[in-house]
């Protein structure tokens, strides 16, 4: 189990994504699934970076939990504003592009691309986990 805690800032996004990607590479995911994990991770992390700490600075903690050799669980914790992204309705992907609402797409992609996605509020923490199997 590996952990990384960094300030929830866009300038740290690349370091966080590299941390996750390296672990997934080590577990032997193929390149297509590596990209899917990276995309899901970006969406989850950017949500936290943009919305978790509206009026203060805060951190993100990432924990990587290999599921034997079958897959990878990524846990993302913040201590910000209580928010369950999974409570958002899916965007209407059939809506006309002119009327398409700009939002909700990121978490929708996470749900589509990952095998499991879970959210819980524990005390002062938001905990979002996602799992991808090989």
């Amino acid at each position: 189990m590996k952990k990384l805690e960094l300030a929830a800032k866009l300038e740290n996004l690349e370091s966080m994504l590299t941390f996750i990607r390296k672990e997934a590479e080590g577990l032997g995911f193929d390149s297509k699934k590596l990209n899917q994990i990276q995309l899901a991770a970006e969406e989850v992390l950017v949500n936290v970076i943009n919305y978790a700490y509206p009026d203060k600075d805060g951190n993100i903690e990432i924990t990587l939990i290999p599921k034997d050799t079958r897959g990878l669980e990524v846990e993302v914790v913040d201590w910000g504003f209580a928010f369950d992204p999974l409570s958002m309705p899916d965007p209407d992907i059939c809506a006309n592009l002119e009327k398409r609402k700009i939002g909700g797409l990121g978490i929708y992609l996470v749900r589509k691309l990952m095998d499991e996605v879970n959210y819980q509020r524990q005390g002062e923490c938001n905990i979002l986990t996602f799992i991808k199997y090989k």
Partner: protein
Amino acid sequence: MESKFSVDYKDCVAKIALCGRLDAVNAPVLQDELKKLMGSSVKDMVFYAKDLEYISSAGLRVIIFAKQKVGVDAKVYLVGAQEAVLSVVKMSGLDNFMFIQETYDE
């Protein structure tokens, strides 16, 4: 591959060349470039994606922004996209409103 974008506007056609990654870090750069086209008459908006390796929802939102704010009446083309990009576009339903093709003939 270095991520870079260029926007070229001529004769009501906006050509946008995408290279590398279009993610949360650099999508605002492209959006700022596209904002410069607001007020111009755009008939065709052509995203060249042959060298685009990765797109996230931040990148998709720039395409939605471009259609909504720059080229409401424009046809939007996605040209030469790789499978990794195309699958995300399709998953998001943006393929219903873009012409996805291998080449763009003026």
